């Protein structure tokens, strides 16, 4: 037998092995799925539990403590409860992402500060927060801090009319008067003027090299025009202030302690991880870039804004997205303190009432999976976009 014949025969054996392996794997997986489905069907039948998604349109019959859309326990369906829970999840995740990003960037930049004390304090924050489980922090904020606040009649009153007690934070609710749409319109006019101003200033700088203090003029326009309008007409917004009733607080917007605790814990925890991502990103920008910018005569603030940050963002954005996804997934810890998020409402109450574990858990997982996959797809697109821009 020649060497080529040996090579091709061994390649053929390997190929045969591969195909056999693949067929075997498919059979094993299909067998497992079949056995699981068969068992589940038999077990469910034995327990007299319905299957299928028919429960979606049945009346829910339980209360939810925070609803962003109309919901009533006597008339709304399980499907409606699902949307209520999903919106609550998105509310806490969205707010948390904004706050955690702000806090995380501040801490990350503080860690890079040349001031020894500032960078040490930021380092302590990161180490302390990262090494303690999120669930423990959440229970601490909820049980040891927010539940330990004064009772209703010892409520803390803030200047501006907000009330704080162990049932939550109550803030004044804005009520818009008839003239408020016109104020919004003046604001839009001011915004359009700012855009025009910015275009003109850039063209002027390109032509003559002279700069216009765009920021100050823009702030003046955006604040001045609406304020002048309000001054000339009447007050467009009045507030409905919360007031102490005999048994509860009347009026105002209620922020549940569960929401506040979850938001605090998620923000503080995720900010520590975002801070590390920011630090790594800024450190990844070569020192020569800063030196070159200084050699060109750019001021430190301009160097940071035009040279360092755009390059650092390329490194920061992928881990940052990962942290946003983590925050969204971690918001499911709401179930530990009873904030009505998707998991608490749907995989908790709805599952307990209907008993349809397979359908309910599958829907819950599908929601998180869709959020994750869509975000990763967008990230891949973004990564592709900046990879093309790189030379």
């Amino acid at each position, binding site marked *: 037998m020649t060497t080529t014949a040996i090579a091709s025969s061994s390649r053929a054996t390997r190929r045969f092995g*591969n195909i056999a*392996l*693949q067929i075997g*794997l*498919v059979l094993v*997986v299909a067998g497992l799925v079949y*056995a*699981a489905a068969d*068992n*589940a069907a038999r*077990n*469910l039948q034995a327990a007299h539990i319905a299957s299928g998604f028919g429960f979606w349109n049945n009346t829910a019959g339980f209360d939810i403590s925070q609803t962003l859309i109309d919901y009533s326990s006597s008339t709304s369906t399980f499907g409606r409860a699902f949307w209520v829970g999903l919106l609550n999840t998105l509310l806490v995740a969205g707010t948390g992402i904004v706050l955690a990003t702000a806090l995380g960037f501040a801490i990350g930049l503080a860690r890079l*500060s*040349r*001031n*020894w*004390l*500032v960078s040490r*304090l930021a380092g302590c924050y990161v*180490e*302390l927060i*990262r*090494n*303690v*489980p*999120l*669930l*423990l922090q959440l*229970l*601490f904020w909820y*049980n*040891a801090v927010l539940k*330990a606040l004064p009772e209703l009649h010892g409520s803390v009153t803030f200047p501006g009319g907000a009330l704080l007690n162990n049932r939550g934070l109550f803030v004044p609710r804005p009520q818009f008067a008839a003239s408020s749409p016109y104020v919004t319109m003046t604001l839009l006019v001011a915004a359009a003027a700012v855009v025009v101003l910015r275009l003109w200033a850039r063209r002027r700088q390109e032509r003559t090299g002279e700069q216009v203090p765009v920021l100050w003029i823009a702030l003046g326009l955006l604040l001045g025009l609406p304020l002048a309008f309000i001054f000339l007409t009447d007050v467009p917004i009045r507030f409905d202030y919360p007031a102490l009733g005999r048994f509860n607080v009347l009026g105002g917007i209620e922020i549940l302690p569960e929401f506040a605790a979850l938001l605090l814990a998620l923000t503080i925890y995720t900010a520590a991880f975002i801070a590390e991502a920011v630090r790594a990103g800024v450190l990844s920008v070569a020192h020569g870039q800063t030196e070159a910018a200084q050699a060109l005569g750019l001021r430190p603030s301009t160097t940071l804004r035009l040279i360092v940050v755009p390059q650092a963002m390329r490194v920061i954005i992928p881990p940052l997205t990962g942290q946003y996804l983590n925050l969204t*997934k*971690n918001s*499911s*810890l709401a*179930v*530990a303190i009873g904030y009505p998020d998707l*998991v608490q409402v749907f*995989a908790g109450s709805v*599952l307990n009432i209907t008993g349809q*574990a*397979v359908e309910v*858990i599958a829907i*819950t*997982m599908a929601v*998180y*999976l869709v959020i*994750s*996959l869509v975000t990763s797809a967008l990230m891949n697109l973004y990564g592709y976009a900046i990879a093309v821009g790189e030379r």
Partner: protein
Amino acid sequence: MSAAAGGVYLRDTPEAALPPPVLRRGVLGWLRENLFSSIGNSVLTLFCIAFIAWVVPPLLQFFIFDAVWSGSDRDACLASPQLPEPGACWAFVRVWINYFIYGFYPIAERWRVDLFFAALAFGIGWLAWLGAPRRDLGAAYFFIVLPVLSYLLLSGAPLLGLADVTTALWGGVLVTIVVATVGIVASLPIGILLALARRSDIPVTKILAVMFIEFVRGVPLITVLFMASVMLPLFVPDQFSPDKLVRALIGVALFASANMAEVVRGGLAAIPRGQYEAAAALGLSYWRMNALVILPQALRVTLPNIVNTFIALFKDTTLVFIVGIFDFLRTVEAARIDPHWATPITSVTGYAFAALFYFVCCYGMSRYARNVETRLARAHRR
């Protein structure tokens, strides 16, 4: 120094250099450089000092100086004329400490738990000490001998004279450690297989691995635990239905494996192509190539990431709390609301103690990961 003839002064040795100005050297110089280099910096520094002065003394006061160290019930920790503002109630922790460590494990059998902790510490030490002799034997001990030994010790083996202890009695640190250890012991081999499958060019294994990894990583751990605790009993015949702790362990192991697979895949990606080609040129088969050439290098470069995954897993073990398992955090939570110890500060004390435990464990592991990282960087530079 010498004076030459003719009144001409010539210096033939240089004068010793003057020391730098006082403000540029020593403690003062350091302070100026690092804390007071500009007006803005000085303001920041003063602000930070004020912040520390505002936060640290009350904390020390609360946790150490005003703390109550001994007592048998809540009266010790309530405000009294001698102690108008009592600090942390460590007496509460002292009374409950055995519950925090062992849960309801029978008192007469607790030496078995201690033995398990010792055996585990021995295995971790063997594997973590990079210069230890025969680390291959250490790995065999950790991944094969230790699981069998621990199972016999903790769950009981009537043949060996060890009474059965049902998992319903396990609790506290014991459960936390068991969940974390099962997570790491199961996740490393499964994670390696998944990573290899994901990188292989056999379509079916690749698709199955990608589906499993992306699915598990895309959903919160809580839903995986719910799935394991609610759906698993449906999927198996009634007589095989696993007990509550085992179900949670399966959930944690699945979750940890998917994460570990991605970490190992990162390590595999760092191995240059030439290594594969060289191994293939030597005629090594796929498995021998991975076992002898690729994996040893890949696991070494990714060891810090493996430790970081383990830190995350250790923190995530607290989530078994939610499916009703008495891990360490759950025992603290249960003790905290005991009416015998109902004081305004019991909760804070309990949470502070739990935080201290997790912080010490996780911070220790992260220091270890950083040490390994610097060692690897040094070896790499050479």
